[in-house]
């Protein structure tokens, strides 16, 4: 209790106001972007190249050449993850599986981004 006291003494009304405003903004953005259904397609994006879209409804090991080398992406049971990456920290692999629309894993060093889509935005028009 004693340790919290100086904090309470420091905080002023305006601080609280700013904290609440930011929390509101964050909740608004989360509601908009994360409250989404399970997606059907995986979008693989490399720098300055059109996205590659593949179905999540398959078992596949996709190899993508990035800035540093090849990254592997595994697709199993409608989910996707990075399974191999040439970067040193392997953050992209530790992020694990994604399957909901707009979920994204970015591999910054290798400049590859994977994200889940529902398929509606993956092309401009359909030929039939």
């Amino acid at each position, binding site marked *: 209790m004693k340790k919290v006291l100086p904090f309470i003494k420091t905080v002023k009304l*305006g*601080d609280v106001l700013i904290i609440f405003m930011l929390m509101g903004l964050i909740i608004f953005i989360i509601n908009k972007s994360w409250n989404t259904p399970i997606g059907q397609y995986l979008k693989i994006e490399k720098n300055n190249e059109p996205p590659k879209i593949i179905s999540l409804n398959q078992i596949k090991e996709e190899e993508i050449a990035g800035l540093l080398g090849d990254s592997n992406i595994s697709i199993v049971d409608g989910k996707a993850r990075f399974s191999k990456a040439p970067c040193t920290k392997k953050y992209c692999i530790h992020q694990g599986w994604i399957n909901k629309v707009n979920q994204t894993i970015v591999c*910054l060093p290798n400049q590859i981004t994977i994200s889940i889509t529902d398929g509606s935005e993956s092309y401009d028009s359909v030929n039939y």
Partner: protein
Amino acid sequence: MVVRAMTPLTIKTNTEDHFIAKLAAIAIVLSIIEFFLPSPIPGVKPGIANIIILYTLVKFNLQTAVWVSLIRVFVSSILVGSLMAPTFFLSLFGAISSLIFLFIFQKLPKKYFSVISLGIIAAFGHILGQFFIARIWVIPHDSIFNLLPLFLISSLIFGVLSGFITDTLLEHKTNRLPN
């Protein structure tokens, strides 16, 4: 034959320069410690060097804070070997954007706003600057916006913390810099 005496090159420094140097040195050390700290979520860092920038801003002025901030960005990038790499630009634009936000908000009435507000604004500005540059240059796809909430939450938490720590520093060391 005339031999000219070699005069040693001297730069005249004033007390402000000394403060800048000391503060920047501390900020650089903090940056480097942070660089080697393991992070549970990629890209999420507490930004402890921000404490020094806030301290400088309140204790001195914005101009000094700009110096300290920019020196920190360049020198720590050189030391960890990422100068001119994407992470350097993320760091640089984060710092610049953070300073812009501080510039706008530095005149917040002290009666209602403590340094905690500044901490939040600095952290928020930092992350927005990084996102801006990441979107237009490092990863030119809108998908990175999905990561925004995560970074905003962390900037809020670490912003409050750094503001609070700065406040304690300002109270304890009223007139002297920590050595």
